[in-house]
């Protein structure tokens, strides 16, 4: 890499979050309120004042910065920006903050994600989109939500590589197992194979347990320079690298469905993974724990392939080998993930990576030094984030 790399230039110094509520159960709190609580908690965790915050880095369009300033009493900001797209940017938003810190644009940047699905359930989100000439080419088919769309990719993966529903079940059961010890997780009873196969097929081959949870919550982190983070309250988590974007072959992905065959049955992360490892100067074998965007179990398998933890097409046997469990080589979604702990458009994965690298996780991976966080496989941008325990 050139000498403009932002490697280890910035760090996550604070972490805050609300409880994870089942959809609708956060009422009468408002979404702004949940977001505000997570930000205040993150600032407090870092040992800073809310008045120190001078920037926001978002994804999925973000939140209303002037409203947050008005509400929380933030005197001035000098950076407020968002990745485009949807949940694909959850990991990359932290990279956006790191880039801004590295460039000297701001000193104390909050990244926050949160949702409250009372009014609009994400499972039927496309039915809420305004009619456009573009969505006339998918909306008419009854593809109502991402669960329907990603089922098409899952079936193609099964066809090409022999992936089975047992592989999907192993993802769901392993991640559920990780939720059992997490007091903040919503799903805290074991998931058996029998229960998995008895569940309704919401979008064949995806059954109920292949879908993530519907949660109301917010998670925030504070990003500042690594140098400053060393003097703050928590052990810093260095931002080793972040990458975002994607290839035209992925593009609008689930709204387009014309990806070349080798890209269709994937997570669309291949080019981002390449750039991320290059920027960090490490490879997949250096990753101690994976916090992967698990909106659907099948996409866990495809991201594991795209990030090089196994060969293309071998993700099914890989997840069934025990590798992603707590005793495996790649403990994955160690908090219970979005499938079993809680869903905040990917920000719960950032939380878990930070806790693993601070050494305070509920299912602590021994000596975890490097964590990979991914943003949601969806339309471009998709994103990845490599975090590192500070020395």
């Amino acid at each position, binding site marked *: 890499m050139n000498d403009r790399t932002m490697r280890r230039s910035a760090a996550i110094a604070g972490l805050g979050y609300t409880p994870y509520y089942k959809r609708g159960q956060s009422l009468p709190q408002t979404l702004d309120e949940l977001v505000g609580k997570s930000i205040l908690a993150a600032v407090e965790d870092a040992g800073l004042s809310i008045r120190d915050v001078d920037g926001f880095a978002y994804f999925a369009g973000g939140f209303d910065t002037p409203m947050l300033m008005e509400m929380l009493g933030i005197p001035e900001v000098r950076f407020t920006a968002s990745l485009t797209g949807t949940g694909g940017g959850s990991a990359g938003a932290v990279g956006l903050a790191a880039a801004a810190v590295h460039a000297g644009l701001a000193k104390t940047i909050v990244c926050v994600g949160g949702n409250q699905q009372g009014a609009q*359930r994400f*499972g*039927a989100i496309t*039915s809420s989109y305004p*009619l*456009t*000439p*573009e*969505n*006339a*080419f*998918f*909306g*008419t*088919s*009854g*593809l*109502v*939500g991402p669960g*329907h769309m990603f*089922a*098409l*990719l899952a*079936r*193609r993966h099964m*066809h090409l590589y022999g992936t089975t529903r047992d592989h999907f079940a192993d993802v769901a059961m392993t991640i559920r197992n990780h939720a059992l010890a997490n007091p903040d997780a919503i799903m805290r009873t074991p998931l058996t194979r029998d229960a998995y196969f008895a569940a*309704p*097929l*919401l*979008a*064949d*081959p*995806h059954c109920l347990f292949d879908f993530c949870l519907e949660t109301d919550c917010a998670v925030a982190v504070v990003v500042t320079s690594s140098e400053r983070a060393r003097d703050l309250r928590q052990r810093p988590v260095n931002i080793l690298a972040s990458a975002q974007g994607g290839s*035209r072959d992925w593009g609008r992905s689930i709204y387009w*469905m*014309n990806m070349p065959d080798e890209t*269709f049955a994937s997570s669309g992360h291949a080019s981002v993974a390449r750039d991320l490892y290059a920027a960090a100067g490490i490879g997949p074998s250096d990753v101690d724990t994976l916090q992967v965007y698990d909106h659907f179990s099948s996409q866990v398998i495809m991201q594991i392939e795209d990030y090089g933890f196994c060969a293309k097409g071998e993700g099914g046997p890989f997840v069934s080998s025990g590798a992603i469990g707590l005793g495996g080589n790649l403990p994955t979604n160690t908090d219970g993930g979005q499938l079993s702990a809680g869903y905040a458009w990917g920000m719960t994965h950032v939380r878990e990576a930070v806790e693993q690298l601070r050494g305070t996780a509920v299912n602590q991976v021994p000596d975890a030094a490097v964590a990979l966080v991914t943003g949601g496989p969806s339309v471009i941008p998709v994103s990845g984030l490599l975090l590192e325990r500070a020395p």
Partner: protein
Amino acid sequence: MSLIAKRPPLPLAEIETNVWTLPFWQAAARHQFVASRCSDCGTFRMPPTPFCPTCQSQEIDWVKLPGTGSVYSYTIVSRAIFPGMEESLPYVPAIITLDGADGVRLISNVVESAIDAITIDARVSVIWQDLPDGQSLPQFQIISDR
């Protein structure tokens, strides 16, 4: 006895157009199946967009296709996500690789076919769903061996 794939919920069948997509839907209303092809380099593209992604030309030929194809992937929806879907279940969103269009795919549905007969690579043929507003939607039916 196998279930039959129904048509997807009608409330979703509303079609917005622009100058680039209108010819597709105008042909559909006449039950003609067409796809856009670059007049200069011959690259097919669907949905139709203002530029050829290969050579950036804006010239389009609308090519009449045979209306047959094969199933690239599909999902079976058998649970309602919003009220009113129930009568349409089960329905089968499917991606169809269109014959005569260099591998271009269309997001559509397999309808009026036995669910058990739907497989990847199954051969399909277009049938038209006429909508109350005069538009027609291309949908696909499994071509029976018999």
